[in-house]
């Protein structure tokens, strides 16, 4: 029986829900043992969540006298030592900013191939599907060599539970310290918010949403669905939203179940950032706006009327 290792990302000592889809993909053959690698977090705090999604062993990756959370190159070194120790040649993770960075360091140090931003993977055939050209095409790739390393896009795989009895263990790597790359500080802004790239519901605003008050209107709508707020490039360039919530080719690529575009014209570069959304809803006062050819449902109207009405309707309990 072989082992599939999965890099587990946590925030505020909790397992990020986006990991559950990755774990589902890891269990593809039904015959592999799933190891969840965690770093810098008490594995006990992850146990219930990880056991629910099929992790048999939770391994805390550590190194004596080295802070792995501030030194991703050393974290990668420790992960490689753990893979060798367990004889694991498959490593999966989230294709998040942090995940991509760690996976790339592991792949580079191993000299092994890596595919990031995968939409789906096949562990048996060692093939993956990922976007090329900012989502204009999908590439099918075959990976050869000893290792199969994949970073999977959040929300691209439906999470399926598989309750196991998870054991907790630790792996202590023997590696020297190194100061060539050190994270000296992590500045938190609005902690607790799910990152756009992992959100399941997004309400995004365009040009007409020109102020903080207007964005509050979108926040209220999003809150009824446990969603988050996004913005188009226009809104960001005009200063009414931070670049960290920009959706689009030069912003974030998002993959929610539901994307509500409010006052967004639907330019190709914005669409590239959200086109894999399961359902796209457009609200715009201009009936000829391109967004209406790129959505599933549209309402032609003034967003300042429609969005509050939508919020009110969503607040009612479902029948």
């Amino acid at each position, binding site marked *: 029986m072989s082992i599939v290792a999965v890099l587990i990302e946590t925030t505020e000592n909790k397992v990020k829900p986006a990991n559950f889809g990755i774990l589902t993909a890891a269990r593809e053959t039904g015959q592999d043992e799933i190891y969840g690698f965690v770093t810098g977090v008490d594995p006990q705090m992850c146990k219930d969540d990880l056991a629910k999604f099929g992790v048999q062993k939770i391994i805390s990756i550590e190194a004596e006298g080295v802070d792995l959370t501030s030194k991703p190159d050393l974290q990668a070194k420790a992960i490689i030592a753990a893979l060798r120790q367990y004889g694991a040649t498959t490593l999966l993770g989230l294709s998040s900013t942090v995940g991509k960075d760690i996976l790339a360091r592991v792949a580079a140090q191993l000299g092994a191939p890596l595919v990031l931003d995968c939409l789906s993977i096949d562990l048996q055939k060692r093939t993956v599907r990922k976007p090329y050209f900012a989502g*204009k*095409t999908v590439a099918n*790739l075959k990976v050869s060599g000893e290792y199969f390393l994949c970073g999977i896009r959040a929300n691209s795989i439906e999470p399926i539970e598989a309750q196991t009895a998870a054991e907790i263990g630790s792996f202590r790597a023997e590696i020297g310290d190194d100061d*060539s790359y*050190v*994270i000296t500080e992590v500045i938190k802004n*609005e902690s607790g918010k799910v990152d756009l790239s992992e959100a399941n519901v997004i309400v995004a605003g365009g040009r007409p949403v020109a102020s903080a008050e207007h964005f509050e209107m979108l926040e209220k709508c999003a809150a009824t669905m446990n969603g988050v707020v996004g913005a188009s490039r226009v809104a960001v360039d005009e200063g009414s939203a931070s*670049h960290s919530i920009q959706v689009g080719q030069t912003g974030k690529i998002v993959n929610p179940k539901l994307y509500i575009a409010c006052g967004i014209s639907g330019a190709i570069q914005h669409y590239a950032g959200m086109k894999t959304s399961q359902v796209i809803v457009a609200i715009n006062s201009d009936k000829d706006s391109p967004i209406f*050819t790129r959505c599933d449902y549209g309402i032609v109207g003034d967003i300042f009327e429609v969005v509050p009405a939508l919020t009110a309707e969503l607040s009612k309990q*479902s029948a």
Partner: protein
Amino acid sequence: MKIFVCVKSVPDTAATITVVRNTGFDESVKFLVNPYDEYAIEEAVSLCEKVGGEVVVVTLGKPDAMATVRSALALGAHRAILVTIDQQFFDSGDTANVLRKIMEDDGKGDLIFMGKQAVDSEAMQTGYRLAVGLGIPIASEIKEFSIDGDKVCVEREIGGGEKEVIEMTQPCIVATTKGLNEPRYPKLPAILKAKKKEVKQIALADLGLSQVAAMELLSMEPVPERSGAKILGGSTSEAVTELVRVLRKEEKVLV
């Protein structure tokens, strides 16, 4: 300072991509400097303008990539090296190996800038492999950059509104993203000057490196566009009632 900038020639993001012969695409579209590499060029050139030195562009591309190399020179780089290859998609490990050899042969740089990813094959990892090849650190998705003595200080956003502040030793690789700076528009004098700048062209075979090609592109499919948008009519109240009903009962994306 000697600064290398790795630049890729890629199709314009506004271009239509037509898949040909299962694994290729119609390359008659307009090619230009990879957008993320523009921030890299700008940062390198601005730094050289302040502290002196040279900015050397390195590109792996088909012979047609020469036009893109000239564009990079027009943005202020001093000279360039173009390694000619036969295909647009080239394994990132093999790419990093070529870049490493070029930099070792030309004389290693004090800094290397490059975009965080190319907008065509989007591997997002070439810089990391180059870093290991050269034995130096790399930081990616960088929006802030400064030099403090012998250290490089950079910042990157990691999602959820959080930022990492990082210190690296020099030499190092900085992979850039939007927000780092405002790339300049090349003016005519710069474009004309670029035509006279030195571009050393080397055929891949002449480097004597073997390719691993650990990934095979089996096929590429266009993504079908969404069609048949349903416009919900009636009053605002009727439209939102219907929308919520559909989202809950039919699409089942909401509880």
